[in-house]
């Protein structure tokens, strides 16, 4: 059983609890175990970095150091947490001065940032560590009836200098996983575009336009559902779906699943077990 330090994203502890619930259900079936880091804090959500760059470095050095103390890689299941913590790691790895300053403070808690743990998305772990062949073998209920619109979200792709796993213009990782689960993915423009989450409270009209356009394209391409590796994208595309589509004058709806849920469905868990009934659009 390969272990990982699991970073608990704020949103998965409040609005999208079904993400962590799903992972807990199937992790052992795929030979992996997520060890929850109860001492980790909010990453700053792509905001703290400009409110206070030094607090941003401290907070995320501490998050990574907690994983390093266990000798494990840090795994996250939210795109923005991924990008944010990786950005902090890049800054820390590039500046000895910043590392020294941060470590001096962290040492009082017995923590040190060394840069030894990688920061990875759950999707990457499934592909690179578990492996697509193993996943294919474990599938009990292939998603073969589903025409899926993969929605990567921004912060698993861009900036590529921080992420670097996929080609941000033509990403394939999520498509590969969905293919291994037996699903058929569609090719559409919005698969690597933005959901609008980060401006929902600041420029709501723009955000809803952005979300509506993505939802509409998936529906126009006759997708049965959207699958996303990011709970923030899910919150907009599911939670705000009715509002966004009403504004754009569109009729119809489309279910949106978390990556962790479709893995669970393919491994034989039910919608009720996975918490899919908690979605707004069902």
């Amino acid at each position, binding site marked *: 059983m390969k272990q990982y330090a699991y970073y608990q994203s*704020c*949103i998965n*502890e*409040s*609005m*999208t*609890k079904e993400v962590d619930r799903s992972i807990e259900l199937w992790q052992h079936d795929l030979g992996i175990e997520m060890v929850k880091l*109860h*001492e*980790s*804090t*909010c990453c*700053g*959500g*792509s*905001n*703290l*970095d*400009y*409110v*206070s760059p*030094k*607090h941003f470095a*401290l*907070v995320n050095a*501490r998050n990574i150091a907690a994983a390093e103390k266990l000798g494990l890689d840090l795994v996250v299941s939210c795109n923005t947490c991924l990008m944010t913590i990786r950005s902090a790691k890049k800054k820390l790895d590039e500046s000895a001065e910043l590392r020294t*300053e941060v470590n001096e*403070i*962290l040492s*009082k*808690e017995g923590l040190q940032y060394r840069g030894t743990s990688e920061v990875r998305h759950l999707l990457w772990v499934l592909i690179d560590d578990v492996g697509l062949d193993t996943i294919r073998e474990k599938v009990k209920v292939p998603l073969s009836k589903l025409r899926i619109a993969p929605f990567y979200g*921004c*912060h698993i792709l*861009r*900036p*590529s*200098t921080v992420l670097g796993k996929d080609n941000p*213009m033509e990403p394939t990782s999520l498509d590969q996983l969905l293919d291994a689960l037996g699903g058929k993915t569609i090719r559409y*423009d919005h698969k690597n*575009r*933005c959901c*609008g989450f*980060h*401006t929902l*409270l*600041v*420029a*709501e*009209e*723009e*955000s809803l*336009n*952005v979300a509506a356009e993505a939802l509409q394209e998936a529906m126009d391409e006759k997708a049965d559902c959207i699958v996303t590796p990011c709970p923030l994208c899910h919150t907009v595309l599911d*939670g*705000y779906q*009715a*509002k966004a589509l009403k504004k754009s004058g569109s009729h119809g709806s489309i279910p949106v699943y978390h990556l962790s849920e479709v893995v669970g469905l393919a491994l034989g868990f039910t919608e009720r077990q996975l918490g899919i009934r*908690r*979605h*707004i659009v069902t």
Partner: protein
Amino acid sequence: MSDSTIQHNEDSRDVTFRVHRFNPQVDSKPYFDDYTIRLEKGITVLRALNYIKEHVDASLTFRAFCQAGICGSCAMRVNNMSKLACTTQVWDELDKCREPGIIKVEPLRNLPLIKDLVVEMDPLVEKMKGYSNWVDSKMPEENWGRKEFPVSEAEFLKYDKATDCILCASCVSECTILRANKQYVSPAVLLKSYRMNVDSRDSMHEQRLAGLVKDHGVWDCTHCYRCQESCVKHIPIMDAIHGIREEAIAERGVKDTSGARHAEAFMEDIGKKGKLVEATLPIRTNGVVWTMKNLLPMAFKMVLKRRTPPPPPLVKSTKDIEKFRAEFREMSGHVAKDHAKKSGE
């Protein structure tokens, strides 16, 4: 191995360019023309378009000048990505075709279309003017031409990358928020504003910043990083956007905007609980009235589905919160010292 891969290893081959056409004097709507030409490896998209114009269809209209990636005039969308035609190799694009062997060429997005591949740049120029993106010298006019205005290397490094911008508008074309609202300031304008605002020779920081924090300004950026990813000069545009936000909050105390309040809530919550208190984030960002009006119907649905974030007293603080709070406060001390040192300089 697909057919396209086999052919793409050849030194010469037939390539089809599917080019966006539109002449407002004749056409009711845009359409695509396919031009198939024999090309040799090493040819750029611009040279291919020039060949088509000279030998196949003289009516094809596009903008180009320096042919060396300097003037920025030949920016267009090639295979769904905004880039310079003159620095884009046809052979590299063959890998990215959605239909094997067919390279799609379209005009930039988010700017008004004039003809075929040519867009109107005036809206961008007007925004540059609107946000006062030029250096207004601090030096009294009588000293102009007589005294030097030295700039330290450390200062120059702050805007060195930003000065690489050639105003090609690729980032403008790829911007998510501009696509949703044409009034949005746009990434190229924010980059230039940042470049001016960190220049010690400039006297208009306050005025420029006051404009940038208004509606459709710096806070409307949704952090999608498409601008940065499409930049033909690899400029970290988001660093500039974050730089303006950092200056607004930290140095000039411009906190009376929903964007600044939203960002500061993260700092506040992390410092107190280590976790974001999502339930009150809309109220803290936009006030009670906005929240009731905009989010109440949705909140009702969320309660039914049991997906509402917990109210603040129920947000569990992170483990070892006392130790964390002490560390957070210690870093606040460091930041205060940094500010004092900077303002003393």
